[in-house]
């Protein structure tokens, strides 16, 4: 059996909500994403390891957006959208990015190092935290685990479109 890439449900804590603006000036709340699996990525344009991971997230967004999955980037650039917007265009980022601040970073334990990435389940709970450059496989495995349907009350995995003939 492979080692779990995400925490057991009982060990997950609620991801703190926040209200941050995206590139269009619209206010985005993390709670807007309730019901979806979210990769919440704290990054900055001056962070080399972040530049490695961002194309992975772009790929994951493209492949999983119809499965109830979203990537949400939080830029920690002090220079703001002036440097972030061209960067997003250059990398072809296809997911929403908001402008972070110290208050939000503190909600998430300080976020001293970048990249710091949280995997958040559909209930809005933190299932995994990755600090520093991580493998694409680790992210994909964690997201895939969270995207799986929850088992039914009997503990049986729910398989869509297959009738239960035991009853």
């Amino acid at each position: 059996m492979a080692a779990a890439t995400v925490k057991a449900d009982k060990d997950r804590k609620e991801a703190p909500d926040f209200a941050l603006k995206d590139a269009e000036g619209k206010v985005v709340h993390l709670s807007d994403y309730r019901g979806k699996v979210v990769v919440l990525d704290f990054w900055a344009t001056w962070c080399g390891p972040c530049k490695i991971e961002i194309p992975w997230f772009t790929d994951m967004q493209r492949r999983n957006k119809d499965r109830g999955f979203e990537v949400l980037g939080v830029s920690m650039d002090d220079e703001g959208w002036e440097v972030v917007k061209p960067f997003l265009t250059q990398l072809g980022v296809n997911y929403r990015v908001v402008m972070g601040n110290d208050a939000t970073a503190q909600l998430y334990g300080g976020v001293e190092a970048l990249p710091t990435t949280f995997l958040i389940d559909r209930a809005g709970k933190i299932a995994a935290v990755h600090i520093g450059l991580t493998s694409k496989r680790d992210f994909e495995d964690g997201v895939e685990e969270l995207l799986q349907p929850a088992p039914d009350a009997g503990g049986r995995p729910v398989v869509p479109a297959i009738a239960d003939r035991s009853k």
Partner: protein
Amino acid sequence: MTGKRNAAVQARIPVAVDAGFHVNSNTPSEDYLIPLKLTWTATGALEGGQVTYPKPTLEKYEFADKPLSVFTGKFDLVVNFKVAPTAAAGPGAAAGKLSYQACNDRMCFPPKTVPVTVPYQIQ
């Protein structure tokens, strides 16, 4: 640092980067990287303050396509001043800021600025 009016004087600012970390040099390899930079906010009785940075090293990291121009370990920044012709005798200090941005091989840390003080004595 001691000098007479109109004298050329030199200061050495020691810098130490913890093992396992690097800071971008004053001439980073990429535009998006934040350089090491020493600037002066007040030089008192001193004029100039041109900074000579050491020769950087080119290091290859997993997260970068090409080697990065960085400083590691211990090094000095050399600063050249000239004592002002009208400088009053006695002690004083030049005040500046050293800004930098550090990473290790997997993660990066926010840009920081630390104060720099160069005490001097005008004879």
